[in-house]
């Protein structure tokens, strides 16, 4: 029997699970190494997940709309509340009000959380840009949630080449 889109999506995101941040960070903090290995693992997972989503949803257009759809699917699956702020040809802004990093133990300091936030987010951002936007795409995030804010803004932009 052919699986529905939802079933395929669930199977994909269940198969390629990200290592849980609330467990990984204390382990790597204790070991004092492993960031590179984590980044390399995340890259592999992101490649599988994002290319899988594009295939399942048959997303062929390489633009900001595709980026927004893919973010929607991933964040919904992980139960993260998000809100699209702006969507145009050149940029896509969204704000998230919950982040896995907030569930990391209180004994882990903000600087460590911030460092691992970069490791996780930059991996997804790189792969997203690579698969959907090409080299001109850039992504930034303001880490407001870690700093105690209510929402964190993630921005995808096309870099204008002269």
């Amino acid at each position, binding site marked *: 029997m052919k699986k529905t889109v939802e079933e395929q999506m669930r199977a994909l995101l*269940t198969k390629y699970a*990200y290592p849980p941040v*609330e467990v990984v960070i204390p382990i790597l903090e204790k070991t004092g190494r492993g960031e590179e290995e984590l980044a390399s*693992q995340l890259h592999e997972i992101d490649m599988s997940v994002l290319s899988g989503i594009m295939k399942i949803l048959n997303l062929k257009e390489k633009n900001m709309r595709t980026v927004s759809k893919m973010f929607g699917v991933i964040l*919904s*699956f992980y139960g993260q509340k998000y809100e699209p702020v702006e969507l145009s040809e050149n940029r896509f802004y969204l704000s998230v009000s919950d982040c896995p990093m907030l569930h990391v*133990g209180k004994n882990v300091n903000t600087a460590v959380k911030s460092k691992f936030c970069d490791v996780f987010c930059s991996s997804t951002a790189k792969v997203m840009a690579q698969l959907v936007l090409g080299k001109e795409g850039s992504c930034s995030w303001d880490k407001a949630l870690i700093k105690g804010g209510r929402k964190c803004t993630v921005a995808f932009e096309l870099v204008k080449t002269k």
Partner: protein
Amino acid sequence: MNHSRKVLIVILVGTFLVASFLAWRNITSSIDFADLRIVLTTTTAAFGSLLGIITAGLMFTHGKFSELASELGEKSLEYLSGTLSLEKVQIIGNNLLALRKTFSLLETQTTVEVEKNLYRRVVEKTSSIYVNLAVLSDLKIQQGLAESDLMISAMDPQLYVNYKEERSRVKKEWQILVTIKQIVDTWEGSKTLVPEKYEKRTSLQQDLRNSISLLGLKERLGKDSKHVRAETEEICNELAEDIDKIGKQLHQDRIPQLLSQMENANTIRGKYFYFALAFIATPLFINLLVLPQLSIGTASFFQPIISITSSLSVMGIAFLLLYINRILDV
């Protein structure tokens, strides 16, 4: 909250206020004994009719309950003999025991608390599913669908205690499906696209996938053998295939919905009915049997009690309305 619920709550609060007001008025003003008797006869006749309605309601709810129990009972036997073949139960059981052993060992090897908790959750959930399967296996033997139970012999003392406890809960045929649903729920968690929220209980599948991912990272760091991760992943995939099939069947047959209806019918049969009965029957008993025996002087003395019992009867009607509303929902 839907509209009818809101109306019902308004009625409930309204009747309570009216009853309190009337009771207060009756306490503060005197009533003629003859009038009192007329009031008592009239209210008693009204409450007698209500008792009849309650009985009809109970019969209706019980009928609904029996109908559901019979439907689910038939289905549970189909599951025991078909979907959960002896071979399937044993394969799943062996896989769960293997995972339990691996994760118990991993739990003892780590000193990081959050990691320990993750592995502990896997051990607890695999144990829980194993116990449920052992219950089903025992029921298969009772139904003559299997000859020997290999699952109990593989249990440690703690697992056996849990098994005995779980086994004692399954008394009716339809409860077999509750056990099967527990297995699926422990494995897959929520069925919506949002599988887990951090505050909710995670599913075994999610914990296993997280652990596999973690073992993958540790493998890169050279801290764990590739063998453990590969073996865990293989078992996890096999379990996913087997339990997902059971889960799919369960959802196709609408078992979770039917079980939820059973639960509702059971609650209504018990809680609401007895509440209504207590609130109506007690005042009736006092008004009908006790008060007619009293003299004028004593009746006047007990006037506040008559007011209170009548108020209780009004409360009884409110409970009855709530009861009927819930019956209509089943």
